[in-house]
């Protein structure tokens, strides 16, 4: 039997201490009420125990004042709990603008992770401390959930859409990574490690080759590493996306030129798109993904519904690379696509 008996999880992210403080507040309130009720029930039970068989209780029917008291006070306390919980949650839910991005794909039964700079790993996530990290998460098959207890954060990996999760690690160390949503046979083996490192060590790690760490980590169900070796760690994600973009022939229609069959992709990300049916949407990851897989759902105003679907032709990781490429266009060309800003930006456009 294990000799350690931890009773409280390690705090290793900026939010962890806030979650724990709130937790202890809830524990304190709960203890107060549990002890209060136990004392009342047991105290009355002893004091008013039946002493003769014929004894009956006092004829008391109730008290409006008491009813109001024990409705209003708990309600007030509940509102405080709600407000405090919402305050913490809003921080958990909103990644800072300067977050670095990492991409996560869950599949039965492993976590596949790719860093922007191109480095990939399985069931391990290396992150720098002291820097907000935003994970963009999806799943290839069923629902999983990406959970790092030491950081007090968790988010489901849902097939067909992107979710996001952010944290800022505070202490170098190795922490549990769990799948928290039941996903089949090896659910309890869909675990790994989050390795928080000093920023310099992380930078160095990024430059190393993928091969070894992946081979070590992928021990149990290890088809992934070799199987979908796209340009392995050769290029950063946007670059890999650009290669795909050329390879799949997207450029044929999405040229940033008058008369192009498809709309320009410059500035898609983060800006509002107008569609033929009059509706609009802001171009986020989910929108770009949908436009690739289900292009006729939203057709950009002024264009024909002619784009074929790429459903089944792209892996989740390839999709993320393409999206990263499209996002890089938005950064490269903020609204001035006209002056032909180089070879890879602005020359392209994606159907919507």
């Amino acid at each position, binding site marked *: 039997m294990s000799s350690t008996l931890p009773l409280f999880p390690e705090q290793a992210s900026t939010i962890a201490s806030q979650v724990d403080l709130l937790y202890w507040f809830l524990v304190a309130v709960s203890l107060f009420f549990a002890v209060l009720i136990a004392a009342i029930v047991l105290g009355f039970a002893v004091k*008013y125990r039946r002493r003769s068989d014929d004894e009956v209780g006092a*004829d008391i029917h109730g008290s409006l004042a008491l009813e109001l008291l024990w409705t209003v006070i708990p309600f007030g306390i*509940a509102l405080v709990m709600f407000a405090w919980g919402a305050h913490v949650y809003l921080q958990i839910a909103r990644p800072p603008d300067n977050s670095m991005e990492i991409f996560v794909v869950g599949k039965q039964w492993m976590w596949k992770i790719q860093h922007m700079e191109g480095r990939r790993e399985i069931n391990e996530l290396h992150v720098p401390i002291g820097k907000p990290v935003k994970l963009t998460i999806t799943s290839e098959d069923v629902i999983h959930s990406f959970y790092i207890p030491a950081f007090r954060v968790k988010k*489901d990996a849902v097939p067909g859409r992107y979710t996001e999760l952010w944290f800022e690690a505070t202490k170098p160390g190795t922490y549990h990574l769990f799948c928290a949503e039941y996903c089949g*046979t090896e659910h309890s083996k869909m675990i790994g490690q989050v390795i928080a490192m000093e920023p310099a060590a992380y930078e160095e790690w990024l430059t190393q080759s993928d091969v070894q760490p992946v081979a070590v980590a992928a021990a149990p169900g290890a088809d992934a590493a070799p199987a979908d070796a796209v340009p392995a760690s050769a290029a950063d994600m946007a670059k890999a996306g650009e290669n795909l973009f050329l390879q799949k022939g997207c450029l044929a229609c999405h040229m940033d030129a008058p008369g192009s069959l498809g709309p320009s992709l410059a500035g898609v990300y983060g800006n509002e798109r107008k569609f033929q049916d009059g509706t609009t949407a802001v171009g986020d990851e989910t929108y770009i993904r949908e436009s690739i897989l289900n292009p006729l759902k939203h057709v950009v105003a002024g264009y024909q519904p002619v784009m074929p679907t790429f459903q089944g032709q792209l892996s989740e990781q390839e999709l993320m690379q393409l999206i990263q490429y499209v996002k890089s266009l938005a950064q490269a060309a903020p609204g001035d696509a006209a002056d032909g800003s180089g070879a890879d930006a602005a020359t392209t456009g994606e159907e919507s």
Partner: protein
Amino acid sequence: MEAAATGTNYLNNGYGVASWLLTKDHKRIAVLYLISITVMFLLGSLFAVGIRVELLTPQGDVFGADTYNKLFTMHGVVMVFFFLLPSIPAVLGNFLVPMMIGARDLAFPRINLASWYIYVIGAAFSMYAMIAGGVDTGWTFYTPYSSGASNTNVIPMAVGIFITGFSSILTGLNFIVTIHRMRAPGLTWFRLPLFIWAHYATSLIMILGTPVIAITLLLVALERGLGIGIFDPALGGDPILFQHLFWFYSHPAVYIMILPAMGVISETITCFARKQIFGYSFVAISSLAIAVLGFLVWGHHMFVSGQSVYAALVFSVLSFAVAIPSAVKVFNWSATLYKGAISFEAPMLYVIGFIGLFTIGGLTGLFLSNLGVDIHVHDTYFVVAHFHYIMVGGAIMGYQAGLHFWWPKMFGKMYPENPARISAALVFIGFNLTFFPQFIVGYLGMPRRYHAYPDEFQVLNVLSTAGASILALGYLLPAFYLLWSLKYGRDAGPNPWRAKGLEWTTPSPPPTENFESTPYVEEDAYAYGTREAHVV
């Protein structure tokens, strides 16, 4: 009536198999349900034993991963759909609703019998699913795992639950009509026993919620069997839609389990304190408030699913709101003891246990309504501990309290008091030892539904398994002494507890027609008399 001869009651009024299987007597149907759900409880408990044995060690070494996944799935399915949901309503409710309101039977005796048959047919389907190899989706059947990836018997299990749902709907319908139309003269709404209010609220949830789960599981079966895209994104569906539909029923379903138990507590605590309930109308109305608010909180099961921040905020505040009527009940029960004349037979011990465990279950619910904390504890053992405090510590303690309290009425015999007290104590101790460590291991981060787990969680899991062994003893003991009492128990007489309520005014076991003549009600519920005139 020729049957009015002394000594004729619902039990000895016909002995053949047909006299039971074709009975329209609500009391006999209650006994049929009692037998059926006890079998299901045993089955569900066996699965739980398997789970606890596996978790003794961190390595998944007793069962294979697939077997373990089937064990917790079938534990959940059997306990929720085939034991907890029918438990108090179908057994005690069936027996007592007509008796408490002075009626001869439920409004639709044939439908009542039909609902038992529907339950049995549904249970047969799910038994088939289990015998044919089991199901491994978890009792929550999350898509797209259930509708695609799993290669187990999801369809027969879904069909079994679909069918059983109709039993629940028909029972609810029967109770609502009966309570509206068949109350004895003088029995106004605010003179009704609180058990009736609780069952009325429960019935509303049954008829409004159950169709949703039924159609949702049917959709899963359609997607799985015919490839119709509803929930699986690969087929153009939306997996989160399933969670909305599932929890729209399955959160209120928790109140189907706990509200009837609350009704039992109100009856029992007043009897053993020999005292009027404190704040009758607040306890009554809070049942309805729980039924209504319970339908508005399902999104708190989806705080980490990617639902919008605003949806999460709204579901969080509503979830806090639903805690208030439950708190009001606990305070009123506690206040009922003030200046009572309290005795401590087994039903009362179960009531005290209920108040303790339900309080802890309710308070830890606040952790899960709380957005900041839920993100961390969602899908961990913290949640497992919380809902077992509600469903086992609350609902089953209530069921046990009720079963002991009305056992003399149902069968005319007293159970032996000392073994019953010992079993109540064993359940309380065993339960806490089983489930309290799970709050700690949950906050440490141990996810639920894990076949194998990191070493550092072992000590707490060993405590849990040790507690479960004590709990098992506490549940086994009544099986022996209750059966023993049928033959050797001393005669109960019509009212062994000197309880108020119409069911105690008629012989035990009651005659087939319940009452010799229609009772006339002239007093409030729980008019336990006065020791001293006292108004607060």
